[in-house]
């Protein structure tokens, strides 16, 4: 990109100070966000942190993410001597994510990246144009903390279309920087230190991190192949009156599982019985292929205790825009908004205007999205089967998990390393998605959010170079 010369060109003459100038139209504002006194000096306490077994792979990678070869821009004088800043104890176990590490390796080895879950194709023009128009129209200043009004309205309208539920966009919708922030704000806003939260493993890695930040006590229930069904008995014995919340990601990353109505009903009745909150991450709801997506909030008695989270990124192939939202009844929304106001304060303004347009896309857009992804899925799944992987059925998302063990590597990390270096393809080792990494050592995750040529090339490389042992 050209380094353009930036000048201040919007200088307006300030008339010499006098009282005879015409008035202008004043502007909408809201500064309540600056002053909500929501926090007191309550004493939080922290539970002890388990240090999980780190797969050795991660330890060998430096904790810095970069996409270029190192270029030194400073002189030889060391700037750090003694007493480095002490990192908070609770965060010592969270280093660079596996995704960044794999991407770095991929670049180094020229591998085809079927690891990280973002498309190598771009979002639709009509949404990009809306963002451009918003920038040109001057929508570049702070948006209202919990969302641009039109966007909140669009979210409510979309939710009604998808679930039949009628909600108040002013009181029940909070806009965040991606679903990642919705999750962080929900955890930090609604979970007190020591609260018990149930997670289903494998889980997206930011869940555990943000639960740590909130001081929660995590109870994990493992979903197992081949169908990753919810183990009902285990759930019944884990959930109790002490449980504060349960987190459900459906359609599910990394397995592609979609929670069935039966499963959701069972979970719902247990939550009602034990007065438990439900936090749902539904970012892949429009990538539901084998069955209809069901929102927990739409089940009887559940809306009042559910935070439903979603985002723009996956549905519109604009993962870098960071537009997400949380829908919840007012008493839960309040907590989410509080935390959100301290985490990021406000969400990118022009993108919210574009997202408003996006959510109003016609049904044909979503139908085409599904068709395109199903074609890609077919290429990958058939390809993986031909190569010799044991492929588990994936009903939704753009991920599929496979068992790699017949290729003779010890565990998922070793397999992924081998796959990058010897075959030239990237997958994600799933052990990072479990509290106990052992549970994931036989599985790796592939993504098909790539153009068809990339998928075919990857399959070809694997057919050529991956040999069963």
């Amino acid at each position, binding site marked *: 990109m050209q380094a353009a010369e930036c*000048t201040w060109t919007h200088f307006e003459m300030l008339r010499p100070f006098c009282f005879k100038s015409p008035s202008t139209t004043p502007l909408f504002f809201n500064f309540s966000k600056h002053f909500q006194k929501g926090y007191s000096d309550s004493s939080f306490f922290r539970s002890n942190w388990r240090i999980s077994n780190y797969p050795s792979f991660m330890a060998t990678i430096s904790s810095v993410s970069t996409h270029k070869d190192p270029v030194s821009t400073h002189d030889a004088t060391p700037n750090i001597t003694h007493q480095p800043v002490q990192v908070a104890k609770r965060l010592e176990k969270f280093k660079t994510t596996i995704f960044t590490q794999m991407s770095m390796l991929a670049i180094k080895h020229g591998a085809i990246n079927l690891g990280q879950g973002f498309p190598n194709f771009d979002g639709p023009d009509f949404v990009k144009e809306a963002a451009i128009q918003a920038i*040109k129209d001057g929508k570049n200043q702070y948006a209202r903390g919990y969302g641009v009004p039109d966007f909140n309205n669009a979210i409510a309208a979309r939710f009604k279309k998808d679930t039949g539920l009628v909600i108040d966009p002013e009181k029940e919708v909070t806009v965040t920087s991606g679903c990642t922030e919705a999750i962080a704000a929900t955890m930090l806003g609604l979970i007190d230190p020591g609260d018990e939260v149930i997670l289903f493993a494998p889980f997206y890695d930011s869940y555990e991190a943000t639960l740590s930040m909130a001081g929660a006590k995590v109870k994990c229930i493992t979903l197992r192949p081949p169908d990753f069904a919810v183990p009902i008995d285990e759930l019944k014995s884990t959930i109790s009156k002490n449980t504060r919340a349960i987190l459900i990601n459906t359609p599910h990353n990394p397995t592609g599982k979609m929670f069935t109505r039966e499963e959701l009903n069972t979970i719902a009745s247990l939550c009602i019985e034990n007065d438990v909150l439900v936090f749902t991450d539904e970012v892949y709801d429009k990538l539901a292929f084998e069955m209809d997506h069901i929102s927990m909030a739409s089940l009887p008695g559940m809306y009042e205790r559910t935070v439903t989270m979603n985002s723009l990124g996956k549905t519109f192939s604009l993962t870098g825009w960071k537009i997400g939202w949380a829908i919840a009844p007012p008493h839960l929304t309040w907590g989410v908004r509080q935390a959100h106001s301290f985490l990021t304060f406000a969400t990118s303004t022009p993108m919210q205007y574009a997202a408003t347009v996006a959510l109003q896309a016609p049904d044909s857009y979503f139908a085409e999205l599904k068709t395109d992804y199903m074609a890609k899925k077919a290429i990958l799944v058939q390809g993986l089967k031909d190569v010799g992987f044991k492929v588990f059925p994936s009903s939704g998302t753009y991920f599929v998990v496979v068992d790699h063990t017949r290729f003779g590597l010890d565990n998922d990390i070793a397999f992924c390393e081998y796959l990058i270096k010897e075959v030239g393809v990237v997958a994600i080792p799933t052990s990072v998605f479990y509290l106990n990494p052992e549970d994931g050592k036989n599985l790796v995750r592939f993504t098909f959010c790539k153009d068809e040529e990339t998928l075919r090339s990857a399959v070809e490389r694997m057919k050529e170079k991956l040999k069963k042992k």
Partner: protein
Amino acid sequence: MEGKLSSVAKNFTPSSIQELSQLAQKCNAINLAEGFPDFPAPPCIKEAAVSAINNDFNQYRRVQGICDQLALKMKKTHGLNVNPLTDIAICCGQSEAFAAAIFSIINQGDEVLLFDPCYETYEGCITLAGGIPVYVALEPPQWTLDPEKLMRSFTSRTKAIVLNSPHNPTGKVFSRDELEIIAEGCRRWDCVAITDEVYEYITYDNQKHQTIAKLPGMQERTIITSSLSKTFSVTGWRIGWAIAPASAASAIQNIHIRITDSAPAPFQEAALTALRSPIEYFETLRGEYELKRDFCMKLLGSIGFRIQFKPQGSLFLFAELPKDCLLSDVEYVEELIKQAGVVVVPGRGFFHGNESCNYQKRYIRVAFCKSGATLNAAAQKFGELINAKACPKILY
């Protein structure tokens, strides 16, 4: 559901500010309250963002070039050696950089020193992370730092001190001597300085912003946070950063990834253009805002204010109500909305701690990051007020 409310929710009290906000809306008041511009952002950086969107910079990314530019700036402006590969985290605005910085170093029970008055959000972040905010009052009318008061505030539990300079709401720019005093405290008590330098390019009367990180022994214990927002009038883009020793920068980056994953991608690209702006851009920025500051001071002077502390930086004027005015800050702001159709911010929201200090209810904050048209309109409103035959409560 009552029992399900978190402790956070239960401590909420409705804000008088919200009521004023609603009143101002009803009266269509001229907005001199909020700290963001009502004039357009520089065209070239908007163009850069538009280009980025068109050129498909729309997926998760971290633009290393921003770090390279920032490292160059740190060297050029402050003489600091910063490693762009290890010492910088890109975040969704200074807001997130600050939140991540706090989460990266504050453990349960750690004390964090803050100067009073200060921007409201710091306290919330600190408490959310389990820290304890401890306020050190700057003394009006010049907002002076009392070294002994500061030193007395450090304890063995003090982990960090937050330094916002140029300062919101007072417009104070901490002097080299004051920075030295703070640095001495940090060194003696082995504390971290977390700075908020968002107004770093907005200083007046040939004052220069200095970062505490360049003082002896400070770079290794300072986390600098800042952003594009105020410098480039793009407060809605959410592009900010933290600059710190590698271990802290790494932790901040990793926390950021768990909070939001990535700052908005196209705006990261545009940031490259912004950060390469020539020196003339910054000089014009400063000159423009200085004119607005002066205009604003005259504006308040015309309705009876005697400004004792001239802002040395930032976009704000923090003015004490005229001596004879019997109204509180909130009452004054209400009257100003009703009678002049202009809205400003009551100062009490920026003060913490000792409630018995009367001066905490005697200040208003005026934002002058507004277009010439807006400021002229405000002037006209005040003019009408003065020219009216009646003698309103707020005029002296």
